[in-house]
C-alpha cells in the first residue's frame, strides 16, 4: 500500500469510527466562532483566584480571543448579586460556579439556567447532571482534618463511628479540640450535616458528642484549618478535602482522613445563566472544565479532586474510588437537596442541632 492510500484509509476509518467526535468538533467550533464574536466571559465563582489560575490560564491558551472576567466571591455574594442583577435586568454573570450546591440548584430550579447539553456529558456520572442545566464539576471528599503533631495516632478517627467513640473514650484529649462548620451560618456546612443525617443513622449521637466535648463551630474552612494547624483544635470535622490538600503544601502537620465507613462527596455546581450576554463563551468554559484536559489541570495544578472517571491520579474520582469504593456517597446534583431549603424542616434541623450542642 502506498503511503497516500494508507492515510486515506486511516482518514476514512477515523471518520466512521468516531462520529461523535466529529460532530462535537463541528459543534464546538461553531460555538467557538460564536464565542469569538462575543469576545468576553463573565464568571461568578466561589473558587479562589489563586487556585483557579491554572485553569483560567489553560482556558485562555485555548481561546485567546476571550477576555475572561473572573469574580472571586463567596457563595452568598454570588447568590445576592445574581438575583438582584437578574431582577434589575442589568446584565449579570454568564457562568456561575459555586460550592453552595443548594443555592445553585435553587437558582436553576427557578428557571435561571440555560439548557445546554455539553458534549462531555457522556463522560460524567449520571448524578452530576441535572436536566442539562446544572452540572457537578468536581468530586471532593468530605474529610476530617487533624493535627499530626498533637493528636496521637490511636486517637485519629477513621470513621464516623470513631467520631462518636473516641471523644467519649478520651474526653480530656478532645475537650474543646474539635472544630466543625456552623450549620446555622454556613450553607455548605448545613448541606453536609443534613446529608450525614441521611446516610448515617447515628448522626445525632455524633452531634451530641460534639456538644459534650465542647466543639467549636466556624463559618469558614480557612479559620478551622488554621486553628487545627496551630493546635488550638486537634481536628476539624466535615472539611472539603481539596482545601486540606492545598493547606498541606504549606503545613506538613496537617493530616487528612477519608472516613472508611462512608465518605460524602461534594461537587461544585456550575450553570450557564439564561440571561447570559455571552452564552457561547460560557458553553466553551463549561465544556472546558468538564473536558479531560480541564479536569486534568484541575486535579494536577489546582489540587481540586476532579469528577471524570477517566483521569488517572490520586486527586481524582478514579483515585478515590480505588481507595474507598462503595463507601463514597456523592451528594446528587438534583432538586432533592432543595428539601433542605424547606423552611420548617430546616428550622427543625437547626433546633435539633442547637439542642445537641447544648448552647
Amino acid at each position, binding site marked *: 500500500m502506498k503511503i497516500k492510500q494508507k492515510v486515506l484509509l486511516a482518514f476514512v476509518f477515523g471518520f466512521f469510527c468516531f462520529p461523535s467526535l466529529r460532530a462535537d468538533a463541528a459543534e464546538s467550533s461553531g460555538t467557538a466562532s460564536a464565542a469569538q464574536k462575543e469576545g468576553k466571559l463573565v464568571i461568578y465563582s466561589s473558587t*479562589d*483566584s*489563586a*487556585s483557579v*489560575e491554572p485553569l483560567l490560564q489553560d482556558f485562555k491558551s485555548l481561546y485567546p480571543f476571550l477576555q475572561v*472576567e*473572573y*469574580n*472571586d466571591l*463567596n457563595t*452568598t*455574594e454570588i*447568590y*445576592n*448579586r445574581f438575583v*438582584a*442583577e437578574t*431582577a*434589575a435586568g*442589568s446584565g449579570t454573570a454568564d457562568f456561575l460556579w459555586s460550592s453552595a450546591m*443548594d*443555592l445553585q440548584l*435553587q437558582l436553576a430550579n427557578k428557571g435561571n439556567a440555560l439548557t445546554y447539553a455539553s458534549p462531555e456529558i457522556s463522560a460524567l456520572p449520571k448524578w452530576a447532571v441535572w436536566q442539562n442545566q446544572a452540572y457537578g464539576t468536581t468530586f471532593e471528599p468530605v474529610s476530617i482534618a487533624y493535627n499530626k*503533631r*498533637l493528636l496521637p495516632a490511636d486517637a485519629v478517627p477513621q470513621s464516623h463511628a470513631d467520631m462518636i467513640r473516641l471523644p467519649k473514650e478520651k474526653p480530656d484529649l478532645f475537650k474543646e479540640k474539635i472544630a466543625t462548620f*456552623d450549620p*446555622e*451560618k*454556613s*450553607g455548605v456546612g*448545613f448541606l453536609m450535616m443534613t446529608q450525614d443525617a441521611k446516610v448515617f443513622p447515628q448522626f445525632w449521637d455524633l452531634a451530641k458528642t460534639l456538644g459534650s466535648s465542647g466543639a*467549636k*463551630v*466556624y*463559618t*469558614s*474552612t*480557612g*479559620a478551622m*484549618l*488554621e*486553628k487545627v*494547624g*496551630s*493546635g*488550638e483544635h486537634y481536628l476539624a470535622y466535615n472539611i472539603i478535602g481539596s*482545601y486540606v490538600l*492545598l*493547606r498541606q503544601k*504549606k*503545613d506538613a*502537620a496537617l493530616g487528612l482522613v477519608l472516613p472508611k465507613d462512608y465518605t460524602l462527596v461534594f461537587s461544585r455546581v456550575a450553570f450557564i445563566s439564561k440571561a447570559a450576554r455571552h452564552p457561547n463563551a460560557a458553553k466553551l468554559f463549561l465544556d472546558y472544565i468538564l473536558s479531560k484536559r480541564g479536569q486534568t489541570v484541575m486535579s494536577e495544578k489546582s489540587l481540586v479532586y476532579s469528577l471524570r472517571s477517566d483521569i488517572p491520579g490520586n486527586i481524582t474520582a478514579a483515585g478515590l474510588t480505588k481507595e474507598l469504593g462503595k463507601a463514597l456517597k456523592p451528594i446528587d446534583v438534583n432538586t432533592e437537596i432543595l428539601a*433542605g*431549603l*424547606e*423552611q420548617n424542616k430546616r*428550622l427543625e434541623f*437547626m433546633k435539633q442541632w442547637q439542642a445537641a*450542642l447544648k*448552647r
Partner: protein
Amino acid sequence: MAVIGVALVVCGPLGLILYQSFLSEAFFSPTAHLSVEAYRYVLADAGFHSAFGTSLLVSSGMTIISVPLGSLLAFLLARTDLPGKKWLEPWLLVPIFLSPVVLAFGYVVAVGPVGFFSLWIKALIGRVPWNLYSLFGLILIAGLTHVPHAFLYVSSALRSLDPAVEEAARVAGAGVWRIAVTVSLPLVLPSILFSASLIFLLGFELFGLPLVLGDPAGLLVLTTYLYKLTNLLGVPSYHLMAVVALSIVALTFPLVYLQRRMLRTAGRFAVIGGKGQAFRPLPLGAFRWPAVFLLVLWLLVTVVVPLVGVALRSLVSSWGEGVKLTEVLTLDHFRELWGYPNLVRGIVNTLVIGAIGGALSVAFYAIVGLAAHRWQSSWVSFLDYLVMLPRALPGLIVGLAFLWVFLFFKPIAPLRTTLFSLWIAYTVVWLAYGLRLISASLLQVKPELEEAARVTGARQSLIYRDVTLPLIRFGLMGSWLLIFMMFVREYSTGVYLLGPGTEVIGSLIVSLWGTGALDLISALSVIEVALVGLILFIALRLGVSLHA
C-alpha cells in the same frame, strides 16, 4: 441645597431598607407583597433578643472603656509635656486602619489559647490566665481598639481650646489631674459626647471582632445574628435582615437626642479662641512617668500585641503548640503573595480610593459643613440625625443596599462597576465622621472674620473661598488624612460594588479568607501597615497635622 443632597444620598439606601422590611420577600421579587411578618418573626425570636442584649452590653462596655481612656490620652498628648509624644502619636492610629478581622486574628496568634505569648506564659506559670474567647475579652479588645476614635475627636477639640483657661487654673494652684477633670475635658464635652455616641453605634456594627473572637463559642451579637439570617432559611432573607438593621437605626434617634440635650447645657461653656496665643504645655510633674506607663501599656495591648501576632504569622509556615518558631521562619508568604492575581491593582485601588477619594469626600463634607455652619435653622438639627443614620447600618446590609440602589436606580446604574460607586458608598457611610471633623475646624473661625469680609461687600461664596476655607486648610488636611485611613480599611460597604478591576485590599483579604490563606492575609496586612504608615509618616513630616 447641600442638605437636600445629603438627605437624598442617605435616604435612598435607608428608604429601600425600610420598604424591604415591610415585604414578604425580596423587594424585586414579583411575588413580594406587603407584610409585617418579618417584624413578627424577628421580634418574637429569642435569638434576636439575646443578640440585641449582648450587643448592648458590648457597645456600652466598649464606650465606657474607650471614651474615658481616649479622652485622657488626648489630654496627655495635646496639653501636657508628656515625653516622646511626637513619636507615639502615629502608633495610636494603627487600630483605625487595620481591618478588624486581621486585628482579631493577630490577637489569636498572640494571646489565643495556643498563641505564642500565651504559650510563653504557660511555660512560665503553668497555665494561661486569660480567655480571649469570652464576652469580657471581646468587650476589652473592642474598647481598647476604639480608643483612637475618642482620642481623635477629643484631642482635636482640646487643641483649639484657649490655653489661657488652663493657665488660669494652674496659676490658681490646680494640679494637672484637676485641670484635666474640672477644666479642660468639661470644656470639650461636645466632642466627648459625640465620640461616645459614635463609638456606641460602632459597637452595634462590630462584625470582624465578634466573628473571630465570639462566634466559635456561640456568642451571638446583632451583626453575627444578621449573618445567620443569610443562611437560616436557606436563601438570604432580606426582609428579616432589614428589620434587624432598622432596630439599630432606631437606636440612633434617642442617642442623637440625648447628645443634643446634653450639648444644650454644655454649650454655655464653649470657650473657643481664634487668636493664636502661645501654647505652653502643662507640666505633668510627678504624673510624668505614670502617664508614660499608661500610654505604653495601652499601646502594648492594643497595637503591639496584635501587630506582632500578624507580623509573626506572615513570617512562619506554621505556629502554635509544639512548633519551634525558629525552625519555621520563611519569606515564602511574601513571595507567594507577590504572584497573587490582581495584588498590585488591589493595593493601588485602595490607595487611590483612600487618597483621591478621601480628598473628594473631604471637599464634599466641607461644602455640607459650610452650608450648615452659622445657619440657624431646625434643618441643622435634622442634619444631626440624618448623618448618623448610615453609620448605624451594619456592613452586611449597607453593602446590599448600595448594590440595590446602583442596580435599580437607573440614572446612576452605569457607575456601578466603577470605583466611583465605591467612593459614593464610602462617603455616605462616613458622613457623620467627616462632617464632625470639618465642623470642629469651622468652629475655630470666629464670626468676626467673615463679618469683616461681608462688610467690605464680599459675596457669601467669595467669603468662603477667600476667608473661611484658607483659615481651615490645616483642619481640612488633617481630616483628609483621617478619612484616608477610614477608606483604606473600609470594605463591607463596597462588597457588592467591587469587581475585577476595582479590587481593594479588603476584597483581597476576603478572597484569601475563603481558603484560609491566613499566612497570605498576614503578609498583605504587613504590607498595608507599612504602606499606610509610610504615607502617614510623610504626611506628618510635610506638616499635615491630625488636628484642626
